[in-house]
């Protein structure tokens, strides 16, 4: 099952720092083991990406390396794990923290100190380092990650990227041998994600530390080289090979990981993807004339998507201005028109005003300037509840929305509270909604028995049951692997096909080009673009301003001498949708 390559074997020659030998692990709370027969050796100074779909065991593997297992999560381990030559049975989380530094996914929660300086010093404080030495070491490491000017700043004064740098400094201050990144790209806007990958790479090159990255967003990590990719699935290691080899195989697709888009496009075009063409990054890709002809031929054969019919304008936000109580401007003269039946996205960097715009539309906050109207009628006089009859809002974290223990009750809540229907009518409506959402078989289950993706569906169902004309979703697919992402998005598309207008707030460029016809781009409280998604992503000026990221497809198009990058993206998406 497991596939090795000569390249990987060669790398084993360096002194090993992490060695799993026939390792297995079972959580106390679970009947079945989470990890089976893990054999993995990471050499000192290597840079390894561990990827796999949700529930494949990659986080469990990370917890075994950093000691959260067994410190926070108990269970039974079999086999052997050596960290810097010492068996894990003789180590604990504190001893391990001297060797392995972990940067967690949520850089907000990881921010423990009250200021940048204090947060970086946290590990030193616990080691009883003297105050003077602490100040010196903090200043030193802050300079290395580029946050030396912010030592006195509080977390909320920093951008997402700066917080990530502080997290990194906080583990580097201990001079650990291994840096372990647990989904470093979640919650970051595309450009910040890109900078983070560059930062990790620079640190790796300048310090020679061993770097482990756990992430399912493969294309984004591969923006800079990694030595090896370990692909996991169902608790086992499926592949352990160089990026070029893995991308040349069909293992990624078979195991629910999205390939980089340019690779998918090449495969559709019938180009043979093999290590010789340098497939690991778009910049290393070398296509022969024959390959280029294949891509061009494929491009002209694929039909272009039919232009969508435009419905009447449903929702208008005009001249919206919103300033927070502390004088901070969140929205400045923003105009948005949404037509009936559209599926659009609102994108832009962290803190650009995306969520505030959604809150203004839902009436959660009151704008100081401008007007929101639905079907031409001003909504200013409507309460939150009355607006919600027309516009539903689904929060990012389903746990923040679900308030009833049983699925049925949760979905029915909005109708029960509105008291307009009889019990029979409510039951019928709830059944119908549960069927649309594919939750009918679970109707009498407790919410706690559902997976994250299913909970997300429950929250969408609980909004859908009220028959809104518009649904606004905040980051509907954050933290989801490719399969769950496709599930949720295809579900939203089916709702859209039923005539419900959908507005998505997102950082995910794939999601935007694949599912939305139009993107509204916000940047520093102003609207900077409002046009088709392909046009947004091929406009370098907007991409740069709003911290977005150009897709590799447009680079592939120009590599193959295809002038109309936008059309290439459009045709790719049509073809990809048919293939899936």
């Amino acid at each position: 099952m497991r596939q090795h390559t000569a390249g990987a074997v060669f790398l084993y020659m360096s002194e090993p720092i992490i060695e799993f030998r026939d390792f297995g692990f079972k959580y106390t709370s679970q009947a079945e083991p989470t990890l089976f027969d893990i054999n993995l050796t990471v050499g000192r100074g290597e840079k390894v990406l561990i990827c796999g779909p949700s529930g494949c065991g990659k986080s469990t593997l990370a917890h075994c390396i950093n000691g959260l297992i067994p410190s926070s999560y108990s269970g039974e381990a079999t086999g052997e794990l050596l960290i810097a030559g010492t068996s894990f049975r003789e180590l604990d989380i504190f001893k391990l923290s001297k060797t392995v530094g972990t940067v967690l996914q949520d850089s907000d929660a990881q921010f423990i100190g009250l200021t940048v300086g204090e947060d970086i010093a946290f590990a030193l404080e616990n080691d009883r380092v003297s105050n003077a030495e602490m100040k010196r070491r903090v200043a030193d490491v802050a300079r290395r990650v580029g946050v030396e000017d912010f030592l006195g700043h509080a977390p909320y004064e920093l951008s997402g990227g700066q917080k990530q740098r502080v997290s990194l400094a906080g583990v580097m201050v201990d001079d650990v041998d291994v840096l372990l990144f647990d989904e470093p790209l979640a919650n970051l806007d595309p450009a910040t994600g890109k900078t983070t990958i560059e930062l990790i790479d620079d640190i790796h090159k300048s310090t020679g530390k061993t770097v482990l990255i756990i992430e399912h967003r493969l294309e984004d990590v591969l923006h800079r080289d990694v030595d090896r990719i370990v692909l996991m699935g169902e608790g086992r290691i499926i592949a352990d090979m160089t990026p070029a080899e893995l991308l040349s195989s069909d293992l990624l697709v078979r195991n629910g990981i999205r390939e980089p888009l340019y690779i998918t496009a090449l495969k559709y075009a019938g180009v043979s993807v093999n290590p010789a063409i340098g497939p690991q990054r778009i910049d290393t890709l070398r296509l022969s004339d024959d390959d280029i002809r294949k891509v061009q031929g494929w491009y002209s054969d694929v039909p272009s998507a039919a232009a969508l019919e435009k419905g009447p304008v449903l929702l208008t936000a005009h001249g919206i201005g919103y300033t927070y109580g502390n004088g901070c401007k969140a929205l400045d003269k923003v105009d948005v028109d949404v037509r009936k039946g559209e599926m659009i996205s609102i994108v832009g960097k962290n803190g650009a005003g995306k969520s505030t715009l959604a809150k203004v539309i839902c009436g959660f906050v009151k704008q100081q300037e401008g007007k929101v109207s639905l079907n031409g009628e001003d909504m200013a006089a409507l309460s939150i509840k009355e607006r919600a009859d027309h516009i539903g809002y689904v929060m990012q974290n389903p746990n923040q929305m679900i308030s009833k223990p049983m699925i049925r009750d949760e979905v029915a809540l909005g109708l029960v509270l509105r008291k307009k229907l009889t019990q029979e009518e409510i039951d019928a409506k709830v059944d119908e909604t549960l069927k649309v959402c594919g939750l009918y078989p679970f109707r009498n289950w407790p919410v706690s028995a559902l997976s994250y993706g299913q909970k997300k569906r429950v929250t969408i169902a609980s909004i859908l049951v009220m028959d809104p004309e518009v649904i606004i979703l905040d980051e509907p697919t954050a933290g989801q692997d490719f399969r769950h992402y496709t599930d949720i998005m295809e579900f939203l598309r089916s709702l859209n096909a039923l005539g419900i207008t959908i507005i998505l707030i997102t950082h995910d460029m794939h999601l935007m080009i694949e599912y939305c016809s139009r993107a509204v781009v916000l940047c520093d409280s102003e609207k900077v673009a409002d046009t088709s998604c392909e046009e947004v992503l091929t406009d370098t000026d907007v991409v740069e301003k709003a911290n977005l990221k150009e897709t590799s497809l447009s680079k592939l198009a120009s590599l193959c001498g295809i002038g109309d990058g936008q059309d290439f993206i459009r045709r790719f998406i049509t073809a990809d949708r048919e293939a899936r």
Partner: protein
Amino acid sequence: MSGFFNYIDRKSPVHDLTGASKMACLLLWTFAAMLTFDTRVLAVLSVLAVVVMIISRIRISDVKVLFWFSFVFMVLNNLLIFLFSPEHGVTIYGTRHEICHLFWRYNLVQEQLFYQLNVILKYISTIPVVITFVSTTDPSEFASSLNRLGVSYKIAYSVSLALRYIPDVQREYNDISVAQQARGLEMESRKQSLVKRLKNAATMIFPLIISSMDRIEVVANAMELRGFGKGKKRTWYSARPFRFADGFATAMCVLMLAASIVMNIINGSRYFNPFV
């Protein structure tokens, strides 16, 4: 958001004191005010308390919530004293100078008024100091000062983390609250009965607890991964060396406590009696 415990970052001599000495001063000051009912001592303490607050450059507008809360509490306390024992002053001072009759069993008596003036002075002599303390001490300094005064650092740190996450939890509660209102939960309306409103609030608490538990797990893991809880002691990045001002402030507060005790001894009781 004007939270309850809000550290206000300004430059002032009070901000420059170390957390530990501020904490010690606060305790000494409160004892000094608690031990006595001597009007002269309380008057001096009240004036000093206001002076301390002015020196700290904390304005009333910064601490509105806390200020009004204490004010309402003070009025309520006085009202209740009067309602339940309208002639408590007479028992204390041993004389009775009636000004006029009010209604039923309530009379306006000089001794009672004087006694309640002392109660008000007690508030005025302590509240500004407490407000100054919470607004000039940041949570991590607060933790390090508790630790220096002998409290285990794990407990001290959890107190400071709790204080720190209050604004986050408030924000999250707001988010949850609007989302639930959108689903039809009435919160603001006075039409609802109290029971109904409490029930509605419970609907919001459920998601709040679940998401707070998630957050606690992540923070606890993050702290442990960086060695929190490893040793019996730890050092503090925010710790500052004791300066002359710290010694001076603490000494002044010790003197105040001493003066308060000495006055009690001279008076022969906790009360200063102008009626004999």
